[in-house]
């Protein structure tokens, strides 16, 4: 065959909306030249369930279950973000015990969420075993939550004014047993299994490098931003609840396997955050006081005065914010949710255009941003 007959041309590929490595219904239109990605364009909205519209038709307490279904992998933090905003608006005091319980369930939920991120990230890249290990341990946390509130995913446990049910001694013992089981033995096991695995490092180091200033400009928050070396954590920078009384470190990316802000850094921040979360849970177990678990009046009905507020909490994927406008009735006038994954995934098109990215790297980049489409589309 003569050279003139060999033809190469660019190809437009649809990745998604149904694709295993997009972690949900998310479509990326990719312009490829062989294995090389030249350009990508993200399309979202396939999972839009009109959260903000629904919120305008329900009273303040009824909105809580909708917030679960945004980021269903760390529902506690979504509940909490919404509750904090309404409490500020209505001037509700949260009992001390409830604040401690909130930290405990939120940090356990963060571990569960990071475990899923760890497992599916391995799966995206071709390591199936870590996924099974991650689910083994995530199951223990879900069992605790099931005992606590009867739900494994959409808890609606953190509510306005406190939490829905009290913590029993039995559950506290379960949580303590989990902490002893999990840290440090199991996390070390994960590091041996995946984090320092040579193949894993060569697949993720120097891939999808995200400079810090670019990440901030794109509104990236949470572990993905910290992976670029930015010391930013709302639990420390704008403490809510009782985080100002607790001790913990904020792990950031260091570029130890390649460039600062690559996929490995983002992944590793999550692994190190799990240790910090367990450290927080242990402190709460030590200090938790007796007392009521919810404000009595707010347990029944909430009717804030007219006004508006914006409050944020640090979710497992970044900053979960709620802008709530009240007109003085028991139904919110407007609820706007700031979902971290929505901003985080918007940087994807930029990352693919910054450097030469292979199709397989695109999967690694999406996985390292750890998105939940339920919250991107709301």
């Amino acid at each position, binding site marked *: 065959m003569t050279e003139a007959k060999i033809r190469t041309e660019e190809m437009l590929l649809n990745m998604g909306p149904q694709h295993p490595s997009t972690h949900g219904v998310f479509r990326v239109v990719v312009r490829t030249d062989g294995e090389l990605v030249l350009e990508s364009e993200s399309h*979202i*909205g396939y999972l*839009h369930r*009109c959260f*903000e*519209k629904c919120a*305008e038709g329900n009273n303040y307490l009824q909105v809580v279950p909708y917030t679960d279904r945004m980021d269903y992998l760390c529902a506690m933090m979504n509940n909490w973000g919404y509750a904090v905003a309404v409490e500020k608006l209505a001037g509700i005091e949260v009992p001390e015990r409830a604040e401690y319980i909130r930290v405990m369930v939120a940090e356990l939920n963060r571990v569960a969420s990071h475990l899923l991120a760890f497992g599916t990230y391995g799966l995206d890249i071709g390591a199936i075993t870590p996924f099974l290990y991650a689910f083994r341990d995530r199951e223990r946390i879900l069992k605790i939550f099931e005992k606590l509130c009867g739900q494994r995913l959409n808890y609606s446990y953190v509510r306005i004014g406190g939490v829905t049910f009290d913590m029993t001694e039995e559950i506290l013992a379960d949580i303590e047993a989990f902490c002893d089981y999990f840290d440090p033995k199991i996390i070390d096991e994960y590091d041996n299994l995946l984090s320092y695995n040579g193949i894993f490092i060569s697949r993720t180091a120097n891939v999808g490098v995200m400079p810090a*200033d*670019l990440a*901030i*400009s*794109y*509104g990236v*928050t949470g572990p993905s931003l910290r992976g670029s070396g*930015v010391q*930013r954590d709302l639990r420390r*920078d*704008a403490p809510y609840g009782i985080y100002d009384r607790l001790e913990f470190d904020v792990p950031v990316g260091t570029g130890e396997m390649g460039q600062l802000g690559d996929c490995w850094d983002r992944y590793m921040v999550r692994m190190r955050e799990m240790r910090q979360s367990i450290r927080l849970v242990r402190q709460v177990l030590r200090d938790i006081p007796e007392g009521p678990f919810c404000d009595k009046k707010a347990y029944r009905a909430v009717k804030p005065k007219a006004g508006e507020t*914006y409050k*944020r909490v640090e979710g497992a994927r970044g*900053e979960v*914010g709620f*802008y709530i*406008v009240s007109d003085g009735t028991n139904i919110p*006038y*407007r609820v*706007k949710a*700031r979902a971290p994954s*929505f*901003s985080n995934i*918007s*940087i994807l098109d*930029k990352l693919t255009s910054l450097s030469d990215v292979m199709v397989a790297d695109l999967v690694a980049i999406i996985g390292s941003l750890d998105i939940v489409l339920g919250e991107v*589309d*709301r």
Partner: protein
Amino acid sequence: MVVKAEAWAAVAGLCRDDSRLGFDLLSCITGVDYPEREDGAEIEVIYNLDSIANHHELTVKVKLPRDDPRIASVEEIWRTADWHERETYDLLGVVFEGHHNLVRILCAEDWVGHPLRKDYEPPDSFHGIKNVIY
């Protein structure tokens, strides 16, 4: 802080670039519809800014006439505004002038109307899918 619509682009630039302000993170853009205001129907666009280095926050509010809500896009200042502005356009019909690709983001491309306006009526059907109310 309430800012006039004409001044917003200049104020936004100052917010990010002045070292004492240093608002490098645009956290959220919210649109709120007020069809029954005393001094004319309005749409408010609210920007929540945050400074990572200085640890402070700012809420900027811009009031726009409801029948023709137009405001300068700030996507050149904060890249994240691209998607947030598209969302506000999609759900409330605020036009961000100078946005490079102001199309719907959450609803389908051929959706009619802006769902978060208070007088929005949902369609009876969409491409043959009936709107069933239980």
